[in-house]
């Protein structure tokens, strides 16, 4: 029967099921085992699966992620946790070169079935060093896949698919969403008994006819709130499109929505310059030019490193009101 669980639980269910599904799946990261995870995503998994399947790593991201990449070449399916995705920056070469190019440089003889997951978000007042949102950066590199779920159901369905995917998948979560409730089908409801959501498929999270609010990650939730207000206060029916997977990208769903609404706003918590919104805007420029009744607008975080001060950081990151205001300029 349908259940309401939180995002963190949904992720853990997905991880637990994949540990059961394939003995080559191993979870490695800082504090993921005995400590139950800095954000408790892996809570209980070490107790259940033991030292071999859930492994605490030293603070050596380049070392253990590179190690996971090497192990994956021999058939292990490491699921790496970055306590914060910001820490990918000390492992950047391993993640951009070894994970993304070994297949290519070997003429297809190798593949790297690794998942690197963790929270990639601001908004929790941990300062600039801990608030990076590199989805655009990793999605720039061919050979990599980037996923960013906004709901518990997507979190579970996408993490399971990502672990089964035979290419490197960088899975970006949000600490702000970990406690969020949502319906997640239980396995007896889904055929095959496995709740899998394919990468490369966006979802219309809210139907609408006047404007398309396109987003990924937590910004989808913000966009949904804005859509409610737009309808209630301004009688504007906004459609909300959630990319879910940034690369591969479901351009069809995006284009269908915009060809229906003729207006679009892209919302993300990333910094603006060369953000995901820029890519989507250029996509609509090239493929929906004549369908657009107004310019595609973009909303991002204010263009500065993350501000610590709680009330100020709240302003720095897109709020429903920012979306409403900007949307009204084109509706």
């Amino acid at each position, binding site marked *: 029967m349908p259940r309401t669980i939180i995002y963190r639980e949904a992720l853990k269910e997905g991880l637990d099921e994949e540990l059961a599904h394939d003995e080559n799946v191993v979870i490695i990261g*800082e*504090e993921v085992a*005995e*400590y*139950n995870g*800095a954000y408790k995503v892996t809570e209980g998994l070490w107790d259940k699966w033991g030292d071999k399947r859930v492994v*605490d790593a*030293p*603070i*050596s991201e*380049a*070392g253990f992620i590179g190690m996971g990449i090497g192990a994956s070449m021999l058939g292990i399916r490491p699921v790496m946790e970055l306590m914060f995705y*910001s*820490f990918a*920056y*000390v492992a950047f070469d391993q993640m951009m070169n070894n994970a993304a190019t070994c297949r290519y440089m070997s003429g297809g003889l190798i593949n790297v079935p690794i998942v690197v997951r963790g929270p990639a978000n601001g908004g*929790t*007042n*941990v*300062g*600039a*060093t*801990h608030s990076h949102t590199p989805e655009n950066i990793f999605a720039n590199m061919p050979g990599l896949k980037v996923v960013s779920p906004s709901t518990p159901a997507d979190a579970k369905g996408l993490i399971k698919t990502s672990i089964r995917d035979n290419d490197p998948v960088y899975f970006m979560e949000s600490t702000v969403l970990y406690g969020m409730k949502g319906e997640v089908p239980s396995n007896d409801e889904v055929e095959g008994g496995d709740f899998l959501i394919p990468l490369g498929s966006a979802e219309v999270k809210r139907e609408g006819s006047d404007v398309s609010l396109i987003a990924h990650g937590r910004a989808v939730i913000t966009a949904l709130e804005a859509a409610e207000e737009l309808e209630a206060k301004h009688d504007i029916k906004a459609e909300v499109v959630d990319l879910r997977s940034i690369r591969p990208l479901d351009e069809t769903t995006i284009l269908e929505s915009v060809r229906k609404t003729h207006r679009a706003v892209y919302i993300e918590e990333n*910094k*603006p*310059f060369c953000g995901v919104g820029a890519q989507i805007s250029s996509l609509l420029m090239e493929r929906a030019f004549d369908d657009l009744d107004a310019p595609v607008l*973009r*909303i*991002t*975080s*204010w*263009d*500065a*490193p993350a*501000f*610590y*001060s*709680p*009330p*100020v*950081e709240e*302003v*720095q990151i897109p709020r429903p009101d920012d979306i409403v205001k900007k949307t009204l300029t084109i509706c």
Partner: protein
Amino acid sequence: MAAATASNALSPFADAPINASLTAEDKIEILRKMVRIRLFETTSLREYQGGNMGGFLHLYIGQESVAVGSISLLGKNDHVITAYRDHAHALAVGMGMNECMAELFGKATGCSKGKGGSMHYFAPDKNYWGGHGIVGGQTPLGAGLAYALKYQGKKGCCLCYLGDGAINQGAFHESLNLAELWDLPVVYIIENNGYSMGTSQKRSSAHPEEGLAARAEGYGMAWDKFDGTSVYEVRAGVQKAVERAHEESRPSLLEIMTYRYEGHSVADANKEKYRTKDEIQKQKNEKDPIEFWKATLADEGIITEEDVKTINKEARKEANAAAEFAHNSPYPEPSAILEDVYWEVDNNTPAGRSGRHFFYP
């Protein structure tokens, strides 16, 4: 108990020249600093629990002798840089409780105008270069501060602190090689409190019997390891490295054994799971650096119970006043978000006015 620890205090370290030269006032000032740090942090903890802060709060309680003892050795061309557990070093170099507390509250009056938070304190005017959130990330910067001193022909050094878990970051090793290869006057100090978050040293670091600092041998670098309970021992041990830096422009790697009483951060729900209550209590009873120093000074007849009470009272008063100050300070304006990103823009230079620097809003 005081008596017991006091006797240990009558250690050779008391007679080390660098300690022998301390006046009674100096020693009392060291005590005052440690007490002020502890009360600043207990107060910040109270305010954190009162919901007045966001993010993380990493407390240094139990380790005070390391920052205060080592920084008490420094002169005008000596510099300090550390990780995110940075409140003690900030107060030790002379930053005020007000700007430090206000920073935790995210107020405009904070040392970083509310932009850095607990992990990112800075005071360049006091030779204090942060406050860094990325584990090990500060270690190349520490080599760089030393490089600058050497380049400019100044006789000084940089104390660069890191945790026992941070030694497994590659950047630290690259820094060790550069420091030894280029004779940089940097002193790396591993504040070994036995744990990196919930992971014991044993589960995170492969190392020889001699300890973590022995990794310096792979670079032919001088190293030492000693206990941090006694300020005397800390000063005696660190002074050797400071002299090596000042006189020979040579680096050192020091490992100082210490302990944190609180969790990794205030959010650490497992602080009594990955280690026992007893372990923590034992430390508090036998190796508390403030109690130890108090006993030492009492032993030396430098302070009375009265003096201690006064020092505590004043420090508590100062900490509460700082909380008051923070409470009453204004939050930054949103317009501040786009300030302090580019020097050229902030200073409205031609370069700062040329082209677009900010792309949203």
